[in-house]
């Protein structure tokens, strides 16, 4: 069994969750070694939600997420190498070192980003869905957002548009109980977030986001309704992040260590492991899977370290579409100091 394409089974899900856990634990370590910079938001503790929801997607469904996206990217099948290289800012990263932790993507797998502004990805998800409808394609969009995103205006506008236009989007609200350090009840006048859906005559449900089967069943059924009937929905999945908001946040100023310890007792990876053992798997089999994942993540780090930094003489590449260089050629006279070398001669419009 390979880590890249595990079978649809509890063992496969365990493997995918464990990959996310080990990957992010290693990312945290690499961050502290200064091999990773910027913001780095970990989803440790939320793996069942990542694996269960993405596992319920069809191969040609589309995915957009916020910035806590390593788990979703890995669950969607991005290689640990391409994600780790992206975190390292290297040329072999999935965004070629241009995006970093928050801006993972893989259009070939229908993953249209990793977005860094809370709620900004929601209108974009409606646009992806609008395009699917225009083309008559029976696909759906899974749009992940955090509990903090429900209070920004884009949330309201996007849900209204999705419902008004019958767009095939499932808005998956990852309620990990804190938007940064602000508890849900301190931010939302209606802390039962799924009830917001009623205002748009949209399906709204709440599930235990740490229960693999519950997540898979709910997301699968809502995606099917979106695909078949063009019915958007909002699914609130309750979970908990064991780490702080980002690697820079110890995560203890707004919650107690006891609280974290209490939630860790329901660690979805431990639960899956117990279930596997109860189903007759033996320790050696699971340990072999763990070892393979450790090796895979180790290899991802080696890959990232070996990958080149993006070339300086391509600094401006991608900023504009290929063919744009000619449009910009006449802008060069009188440019600010260094602009010629940094931009005009560094891939602008290529």
């Amino acid at each position, binding site marked *: 069994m390979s880590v890249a394409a595990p079978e649809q089974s509890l063992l496969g899900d365990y493997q995918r969750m464990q990959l996310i856990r080990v990957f992010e634990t290693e990312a945290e370590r690499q961050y502290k070694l200064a091999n990773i910079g910027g913001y780095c938001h970990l989803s440790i503790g939320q793996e069942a939600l990542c694996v269960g929801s993405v596992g319920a997607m069809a191969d040609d469904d589309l995915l957009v997420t916020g910035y806590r996206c390593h788990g979703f990217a890995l669950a969607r099948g991005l290689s640990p190498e391409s994600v780790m290289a992206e975190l390292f800012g290297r040329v072999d990263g999935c965004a070629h070192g241009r995006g970093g932790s928050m801006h993972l993507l893989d259009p070939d797998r229908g993953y249209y980003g990793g977005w860094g502004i809370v709620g900004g990805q929601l209108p974009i998800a*409606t*646009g992806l869905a609008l*395009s699917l409808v225009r083309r008559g394609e029976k696909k759906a969009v899974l749009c992940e957002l955090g509990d903090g995103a429900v209070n920004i205006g884009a949330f309201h506008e996007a849900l209204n548009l999705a419902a008004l236009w019958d767009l095939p989007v499932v808005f998956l609200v990852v309620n990990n109980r804190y938007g940064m350090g602000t508890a849900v009840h301190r931010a939302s006048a209606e802390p039962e977030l799924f009830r917001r859906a009623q205002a748009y005559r949209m399906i709204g449900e709440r599930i235990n986001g740490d229960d693999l089967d519950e997540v898979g069943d709910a997301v699968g059924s809502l995606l099917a309704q979106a695909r078949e009937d063009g019915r958007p929905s909002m699914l609130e999945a309750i979970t908990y992040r064991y780490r702080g908001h980002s690697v820079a946040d110890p995560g203890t100023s707004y919650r107690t260590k006891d609280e974290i310890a209490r939630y860790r007792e329901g660690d979805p990876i431990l639960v899956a492991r117990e279930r596997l053992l109860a189903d007759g798997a033996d320790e050696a089999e699971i340990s072999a899977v763990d070892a393979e994942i450790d090796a895979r993540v180790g290899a991802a780090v080696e890959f990232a370290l070996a990958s080149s930094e993006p070339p300086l003489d391509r600094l401006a*590449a991608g900023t504009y*579409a290929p063919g*744009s260089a000619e449009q910009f050629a006449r*802008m*060069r*006279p*009188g440019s600010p100091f260094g602009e010629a070398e940094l931009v005009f001669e560094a891939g602008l419009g290529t």
Partner: protein
Amino acid sequence: MSTPSLTAPGASGSGVREMNVREALREALAEELERDERVFLMGEEVGVFDGSYKVSAGLMERFGEERVRDTPISEEGFVGAGVGAAMLGERPVVEIMTLNFLLVAMDQVINHAAKIGAMFGGEVRCPMVIRTPNGAGNQLTAQHSQSFDGWFASTPGLKVVSPATPADAKGLLKAAIRDDDPVLVIENLPLYKEKGPVPDDAEHVVPIGLARLAREGRDLTIVAHSFATVRALHVAERLRESHGVEIEVVDLRSLRPLDVETVAASVAKTNRVLCVEEGWPTYGVTAELAARIQRACFDDLDAPIERVGMAEVPLPYAKNLETAALPNEDRIAAAALQVLDLA
């Protein structure tokens, strides 16, 4: 690159039709809707209402509700929907009723649409158009009389064009729709009724990044775009009659990319330059022009670069105050005479 023609379109006199800017824009939309299935329009009142300023009049009837899509008052929502659709290869043309309302969608324009190409390593693109009028002069007061052209044109990842004639309105909008990047087309309310010749050609596309020599002269260059170009041309005629000077007028047409080459060539000839814009000059389009001109044309200049823009106040309602605050022809003429040492 080959030397582009800088003469006015239709100058040859054959194969042109007279129409106003509004009609020229409508033709561009209709032709591109006809040409490319991926093109669709979206915005407030673009369909049933026939467009707040009637640019899209009749298009819903002709192309249907799917391709001319009315939206609720949700600029951030539907600009973002345009971004998402563009990422899948559609060619959305999003109308914002006026530039002032684009402020509530700034996050989608600046922090999403403009970032996609670079931030995702060139793996996806965002070929969308946002078209919207700006402009003051109808006593619309502070919240509805603004020109933020420079804000948008300062953002890498966006392209910004702003036509002054019917021919350019049509040709630049078509170029924007065919472009693979997000393009903001800044139109102008008072200009919608301006008439001019438009080439009778469905392939009339004006290249992005190419300024237009709107009037030839030898004594002073006025650099402008959009409605300021029209004012500048009037001033040029007025000062020819009153002072016998010949003013050259460069119509930028594109703000990003900015055709400094054409501006610099003109300044090298006239040695004097006045930059005019509808917006506030501080940190504005004319500030950018002045910085680039002094660097590109340092040895050519016989007088300090001068600028005229909107008076730096929120635009007042009272007609006399509004008129005084605008970059009106009297103010442009006075500035021109000063640069010409004729004041």
